[in-house]
């Protein structure tokens, strides 16, 4: 809100420069964004907190300034005006909806001469960014900016029946407002009406029909208090934001209605001529009851650590308009001024005293501590996870939690529902659904990269995915880990890579991460999943057999929907479940005392036989002194039939009692070999 320095000086006799005022007001909670020169005036742009509508006026700001400077507020003196007749004899006011309009006062000025405002008034308004219109309209605007009370002037003769009815609009009732727009109203909107029709949107804007014009002679000055929620709702619904609505929405001072009106009437009589009625019609169905707050001065020290003398507290509270006899001084009650809608308990008064004593006077110290700090239980594992994936070349991504509807992805087992939680009021077009998978977000990010010519991309994200609410319960929010990889196995500082990434790069990175987290190794098994290409899809299980996610190559249908023209590998799992899975125990075993003998074996068998099956077959044989089996490699193509492959294993034989003799190893190895050949119908190569 713009405040004129010259105007403020009239109300405060401030001796502070505009720059000094800027600093001092900022430090009492009225931040000044800028101070700008306007002719011979300086204009302060004040950021008024939403709970301080009383500061949306020059008097409101002036009150703070006088407390800062230990001065007195200089309010404009009431002036005597020509008066004749009683308002009640000339018009009437009826409030049909007192819940939305607790007070309405009307007063007339007859015989005005509409014309331009005097220079001083024009200058004042222009300094604070207001456009002068005519003397009467300008005066209502002036008083609004002076004391914060929105006023409205009606051309009295345009009011049908010469009366005011405050009521809810009829369904579909129409009103052309002062901005020239035709508004269609609804039943929950409050209007000011005459005998026939709506003539103003209560607390927001007047109607064009009863607008002050050059021909206007008699004006009715409205000064009222409207329900903040009603004004806010109506203004929002109609997309309006006016000087009046801004003040009523936050809460005006209903006790100030008559004084503001009198000030307006005085200025009209002075600047536009005319004769005022002797009094106002003041309909006040819901009189204001001032709040009383109990206050113990010791709470100031208790909450802020400030040592403020009690007479200083009294000075601050009094200066801000609080009333009290300050007795007994240890615990007194203070009456909250009608304009301070924000104050209703002791802590609020503590804040008043603290901000005017200065937050910079508050000491700065750490609280004594007897509680140890702690991370989230899985934080260190998650840090290891991130670092492991970084080491494997994966960049961490963060994508929006809302996405377009996605039904083509197999979800993690924790989200058994297929449905997604929908947003009632999305902001990004199409992003209407809470994600149930991180894949769509990451695949979009991949597409973004590919579109920018980056084809080697490895990303992962850790984030919540959302289930769907059932029976009014909040939806589930399990934590997911998702990886995507495509392009070449690039090396640091090299332009060209030796090979393209594949399934086993993603699998290997995930396994590395599991090792870094000291969790038991995962188990992978072939599976089918709707977003994964058949034959390159795995289900991921914890060591204890619990399925937690899937890994594989993105199915062609999904890839082409994203316009990917290179293979993309994706992995998604339930991270919460992974983190709560069994840890890898550390158990020392003594180093071997006798040498090992290694023997390789190459088996030619059906491609459908999984390595895991062969390895477990070896382990299950229980061949004496066979200590370990590892893959040497697989081979296919050349002279091997297409449905077969050759698998070479290396077996380690060792005894704890003695060095094995060659014949012993040979015997054991051939026993194992023939058993494997038989089990898998394999040939030896």
């Amino acid at each position, binding site marked *: 809100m713009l405040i004129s320095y010259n105007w403020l000086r009239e109300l405060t006799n401030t001796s502070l420069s505009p720059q000094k005022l800027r600093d001092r007001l900022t430090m009492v909670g009225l931040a000044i964004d800028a101070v700008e020169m306007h002719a011979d005036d300086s204009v302060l742009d004040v950021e008024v907190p939403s709970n301080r509508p009383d500061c949306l006026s020059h008097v409101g700001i002036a009150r703070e300034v006088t407390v800062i400077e230990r001065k007195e507020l200089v309010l404009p003196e009431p002036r005597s005006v020509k008066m004749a007749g009683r308002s009640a004899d000339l018009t009437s006011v009826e409030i049909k909806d007192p819940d939305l309009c607790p007070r309405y006062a009307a007063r007339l000025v007859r015989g005005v001469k509409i014309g331009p405002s005097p220079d001083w008034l024009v200058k004042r308004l222009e300094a604070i960014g207001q456009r002068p219109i005519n003397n009467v309209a300008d005066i209502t605007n002036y008083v609004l900016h002076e004391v914060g009370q929105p006023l409205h002037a009606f051309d009295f003769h345009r009011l049908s029946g010469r009366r005011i009815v405050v009521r809810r609009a009829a369904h579909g009732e129409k009103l052309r407002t002062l901005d020239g727009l035709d508004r269609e109203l609804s039943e929950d909107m409050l209007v000011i009406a005459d005998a026939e029709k709506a003539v103003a949107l209560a607390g927001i804007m007047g109607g064009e029909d009863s607008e002050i014009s050059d021909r206007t002679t008699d004006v009715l000055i409205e000064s009222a208090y409207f329900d903040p929620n009603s004004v806010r709702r109506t203004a929002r619904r109609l997309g309006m934001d006016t000087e009046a609505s801004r003040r009523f929405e936050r809460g005006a001072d209903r006790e100030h209605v008559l004084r503001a009106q009198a000030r307006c009437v005085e200025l009209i009589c002075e600047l536009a001529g005319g004769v005022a009625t002797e009094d106002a019609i003041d309909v006040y169905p819901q009189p204001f009851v001032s709040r009383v707050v109990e206050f113990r001065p010791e709470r100031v020290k208790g909450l802020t650590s400030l040592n403020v003398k009690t007479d200083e507290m009294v000075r601050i509270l009094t200066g801000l308009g609080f009333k009290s006899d300050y007795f007994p001084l240890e615990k007194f009650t203070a009456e909250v001024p009608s304009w301070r809608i924000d104050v209703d308990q002791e802590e609020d008064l503590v804040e008043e005293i603290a901000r005017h004593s200065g937050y910079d006077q508050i000491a700065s110290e750490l609280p004594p501590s007897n509680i140890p700090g702690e991370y989230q239980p899985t934080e260190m594992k998650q840090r290891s996870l991130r670092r492991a994936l970084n080491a494997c*070349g994966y*960049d961490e991504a963060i994508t929006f939690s809302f996405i377009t509807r996605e039904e083509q992805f197999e979800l993690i087992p924790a989200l058994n529902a297929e449905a997604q939680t929908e947003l009632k009021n999305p902001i990004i077009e199409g992003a209407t659904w809470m994600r149930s998978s991180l894949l769509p977000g990451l695949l979009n990010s991949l597409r973004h990269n590919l579109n920018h010519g980056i084809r080697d991309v490895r990303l992962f994200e850790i984030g919540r995915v959302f289930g769907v609410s059932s029976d009014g319960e909040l939806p589930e929010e399990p934590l997911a880990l998702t990886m995507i990889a495509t392009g070449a196995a690039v090396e640091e500082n090299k332009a060209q890579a030796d090979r393209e990434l594949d399934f086993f790069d993603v699998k290997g990175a995930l396994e590395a991460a599991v090792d870094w987290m000291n969790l038991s190794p995962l188990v992978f098994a072939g599976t089918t999943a709707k977003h994964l290409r058949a034959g390159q899809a795995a289900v991921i299980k914890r060591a204890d057999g619990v399925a937690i996610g899937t890994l594989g190559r993105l199915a062609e249908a999904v890839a082409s929907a994203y316009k990917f023209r290179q293979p993309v590998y994706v992995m998604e799992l339930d991270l919460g479940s992974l983190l709560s899975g069994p840890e890898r125990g550390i158990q020392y075993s003594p180093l071997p005392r006798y040498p090992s003998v290694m023997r390789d074996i190459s088996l030619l068998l059906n491609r459908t036989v999984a390595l895991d099956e062969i390895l477990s077959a070896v382990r299950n044989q229980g061949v004496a002194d066979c200590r370990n089996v590892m893959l040497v490699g697989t081979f296919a193509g050349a002279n091997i039939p297409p449905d077969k492959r050759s698998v070479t294993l290396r077996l380690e034989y060792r005894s704890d009692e003695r060095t094995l003799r060659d014949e012993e190893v040979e015997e054991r190895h051939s026993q194992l070999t023939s058993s494997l050949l038989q089990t898998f119908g394999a040939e030896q190569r």
Partner: protein
Amino acid sequence: MTENQPALTPERQVEAARKAFDEDIERFVRFCDPAQLAQADLETAVAEERAFAEVRARHLGKKSELAAAKKSIGRVAADMRPAFGQLVRSHEEAMVQQVELIEASLKEHIEAQRTARESIDVTMPGRRPRSGHRHPITLLRERIEDIFVALGYAIEDDREIETDFYNFDALNIPDHHPARASQDTFYTTEGFALRTQTSTVQIHAMQRRGVPVRMIAPGRVFRRDTPDPTHNPMFFQVEGLCVDRGITMAHLKGTVAEFLRRMFGPDTVTRFRPSYFPFTEPSAEFDFSCFKCKGSGCRICKNSGWIELGGSGMVHPNVLRAVGVDPQVYSGFAFGLGIDRMCALMYELDDIRLLFENDVRFLEQFE
């Protein structure tokens, strides 16, 4: 020389051996001349070295002429023997000296050639797969967590879709507060809110842990802002809460100042200004002295020397009451700040939409 040829005198024998040596060694003498040596490439030098080893063995080895001559000393008259010995020694010494000279020269040459040939370009890239990078939000979140754990805080976390109770009611946000409007807050079709601030975790944490409590809660929050260079409808905040007996604003100031010093450097100055938040009373916004210009004014601080960072205050008694804590016995402070905003400040991001676009060229600029 054969058995049946007339035997030469031992002296002649020595002379003959010397002469044969001189003839054989002649082609190797050039290797003592650096200029000539330089012309021999590695392969030639190695072959010559091998050939030279044979020459040496032939003339100085156990089966050489010279060795045979030495054995013939018996045939030398007794009085001539010292002179003969002298003769043999002088020849032998001269031959050995020359051989060693050539040998050393060749060896050095070969070594130098080999070294040159096997030298590597140490500026070639080290062999390692491309490294990935943590997201800048994670970098900051981890730093913030480390600082507060060191200050005795627990890290808390909770839901992102919330009931009105946690997102508004318990935080003393009035029924008609604009924040509740669907203009500012996302709602699901079931009427739940996407949390608009991590303050929700204050409530969960106090319900779970009771008081006293010290915790921070970093996390995602949502507000209905259209994405532009300075807004995102989703961003990251960290909320802090400390409730105990005798907690005052001095503790709030001390804690925030300590955090900002650890975050932005020991010279960082913090400033508190009165402000308004429904969930705190008294409330304060805090600014810190610009880390870039140290207060003299620059683009980052909009020439004010101060950077606005977050909101804070003493926990509103209604918030304490909402979780069954007696505000007459306990008091506490709370603060909140935007991680995205800090990120934008620290790395001078000109467009915060970059944070969630996940352009690899952006991500790889961080750690």
